[in-house]
């Protein structure tokens, strides 16, 4: 039977992570399953757990009063949901909803923050993996903001 440690080791996000560090990370992890329509987290809630998607899809949404929530990204297997756990005050700034039955590994953020403080090498290895994800999503968000498919104002 595949352990959480095995799953994390095989996940693209953790590729190349030292086995000992992998064991440390998996010590903060648990399997989490979400039926379609269930929220992994909601805006404003404490960012005390982030998710590694094993299977399924998760919509990231922003709610506005009087309007249907707007989906601004959809993530799938192999992707990471949530980075606000890295940055004080550790609160989610959007909603994350499973759009189909979704299996994830949930990683206890408080646990991982504590271990990263105690072992800066672990913290550095995690940041090396999170920063490219954040930069990529920032670039993609910029492109979305440009509304390139809209009519030209000229």
């Amino acid at each position: 039977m595949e352990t959480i440690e095995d799953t994390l080791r095989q996940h693209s996000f953790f590729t190349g992570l030292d086995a000992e560090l992998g064991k440390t990370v998996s010590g903060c992890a648990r399997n989490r399953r979400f039926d379609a329509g269930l929220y992994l987290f909601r805006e404003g809630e404490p960012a005390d757990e982030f998710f590694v998607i094993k299977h399924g899809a998760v919509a990231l949404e922003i709610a506005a009063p009087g309007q249907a929530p707007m989906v601004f990204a959809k993530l799938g297997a192999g992707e990471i949901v949530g980075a606000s756990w890295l940055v004080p005050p550790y609160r989610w700034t959007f909603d994350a909803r499973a759009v189909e039955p979704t299996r994830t590994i949930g990683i206890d953020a408080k646990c991982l923050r504590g271990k990263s403080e105690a072992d800066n090498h672990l913290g550095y290895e995690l940041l090396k993996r999170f920063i490219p994800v954040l930069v990529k999503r920032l670039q993609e968000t910029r492109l979305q903001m440009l509304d390139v498919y809209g009519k030209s104002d000229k």
Partner: protein
Amino acid sequence: MIAATSDPFVPLRYRVARVTHESADTTTLDLVPAEGTPPVFRAGQFNMLYAFGIGEAAISMSGDPDDRNRIVHTVRNVGAVSSALSKLEPGCTVGLRGPFGTVWPVESASGRDVVIIAGGLGLAPLRPAIYHVLSRRGQFGRVIILVGMRNPGDILFRHELEQWRSRLDVELEVTVDHADASWHGNVGVVPALIARMGFDAASAIAMVCGPEIMMRFSVNALADAGVALDRIHVSMERNMKCAIGLCGHCQFGPHFVCKDGPVMRFDQIARIFATREI
């Protein structure tokens, strides 16, 4: 490639046979010649469409190159000419010069994975290439079609996209920039889909059409995936007037887009593509 008409400046009369309203601002016109048969065109080429009394605009063919009975154009209402073309009704007459310009590399793609990346209205100039490839499906490796749109309501050629997606020998993904919760497809930018497709980057041929910013990001993502720049082709858009490389309105560095394009191999334009104000 020059126009099929004897005098490339003289438009021929075409009758609007059918009008399809694709979205609030995008219309597809099926045109048949007032006399004779339409000229043969190849995927990627364009015609100059003349709205009588208003002016001309360069519009890519969006129909099947193997269809010898009609010429199909998809027009977005963004200016005086395209607005007039968008308002045409069946039976109206329009002037047409062409076909002009270079073609998508569907011949040299034979035996290779084909990656077609369209953004917004950029799907229209790529549709002839898709028809070509799908009607000769056995000649190609994997066929991957990636489409980015603004939102689900703007999806162009939705019915055909659904048909193509249902085929077992085509991998097609549509993504939108944003949506509400009723949309179950991808949300995000089209270049982000490229890395997930896992095609044979060492030999794949990529064809990209859309807003220039979208093409820039897509080319970067293709290059990151390992596709050599000489196997990436983009369709450029500039203000074309004469369409035969004389007037210079569509100059793009040392090239005239009407004559040397609109389909251009990316390695040959990479430097000027990155130059501002060109």
